[in-house]
């Protein structure tokens, strides 16, 4: 799953474009669908309940 901030940035860009530009219905629909998908993914990430904690000793090598 993409990084949350990227997800949200893309969603904002989509909304701005939909709001500002006079788009073909086809294109508007495509953007809308992507926006809905990004929103769903973002909400899913937000729903994550538990904080993951790692001690650095467990991840010696940079990933």
């Amino acid at each position, binding site marked *: 799953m993409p990084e949350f901030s990227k997800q949200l940035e893309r969603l904002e860009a989509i909304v701005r474009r939909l709001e500002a530009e006079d788009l073909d219905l086809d294109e*508007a629909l495509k953007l809308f669908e992507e926006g809905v998908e990004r929103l769903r993914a973002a909400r899913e990430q937000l729903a994550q309940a538990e904080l993951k904690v790692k001690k*650095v000793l467990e991840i010696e090598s940079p990933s």
Partner: protein
Amino acid sequence: MGQSLDLFAAASAEGAWTVAEVTRRARAVIEAGLPPLWVRGEIAGFKAWRSGHWYFSLRDKSAQLRCVMFAKQNFMLPAPTDGMQVFVFARPTLYEDKGDFQLTVMELLSTEQGGLWKLAFEKAKAALTKDGLLDPARKRRLPPFPRRIAVVTSPDGAALRDIQAVLARRWPIAELIVVPAQVQGAKAEASVCSALNRISRLPVDVLVVARGGGSVEDLWAFNSERVARAVAAMPMPVISAIGHETDVTLCDLVADLRAPTPSAAAEAATPDRAEVRIKCDVLGQRLARALRIASKHVVERLDRTGDRLVSSIQNRIERSGALLTAHSARLDALSPLRVLGRGYAVARDADGKILKRVAQLPSGKEFRLRVSDGEVDARVQ
């Protein structure tokens, strides 16, 4: 309790004391009779040995005392300089190897403004300033939605617990990477530097360096120039939360953000999940509305296009009508009937041939004459 000293007791068969016995006894007397005490004086002949031990004299106008401060006592202290007025808390003793009366110093405080710490702090701060490391323009912005948050702190301190609690509440989307370090004591400086070095190679979005409150000695590692430089060199933004709000350390000064407490550092590092949820809801609403508006635009455009189509056809029809009228007017003007209407007549022979000249009309010739409303038979006389 003091040891009794019998100066007249023979210490050897010859009736004389050995040097070692005298010094040993004298040391015992001194240590028994002079408990650890605070002494005030001026530093002179200061010398730090490679072993880490410090040797110097304390003096005033009329006397001086040899002093030693061992590495295990002074490791956290900035070195004093000759001429400095200090207080020492020391145990008077006798150094038997040399027979010197001396003070074993356990604590050393400068009487000057802020003491030794202040002095060392200002010195390091000046060095950092000179290298531009305290320039406000260096401060980086914190990432709005961090994915990985690293923390350098004591693995079992309250600071880590506080940070973890705040992150779990506000932004559990992130991954917390704990890099344990010794945050006080002789190894703290090296331990913190090595933790920082390790993190600098990890994909981390923001780093929190935290330590709970403590004495100026406890916070020493975070006032070390080495740690400050390591913090300044971190590739990601650093939030520093060292000690209480009133203690400003060098680490705080070079960090991109200084937080008053470890909890505050964790708050600064993260967005609030509840707020982000609201933000997402708003974006969802805008998305839906934008689509509605976009589709409305399309429908309107379709309508407009239809209107244009209709009106363009109408125009065309009207134009054709006008053309037709013009053409028929011209046709009408050319019609021979129209000429006849003005009083002219056409003469034709029996074959319908038009008779235009006198030669075609000899006397007695019969012909037909076409006038505006019909034909009549006629004859030339």
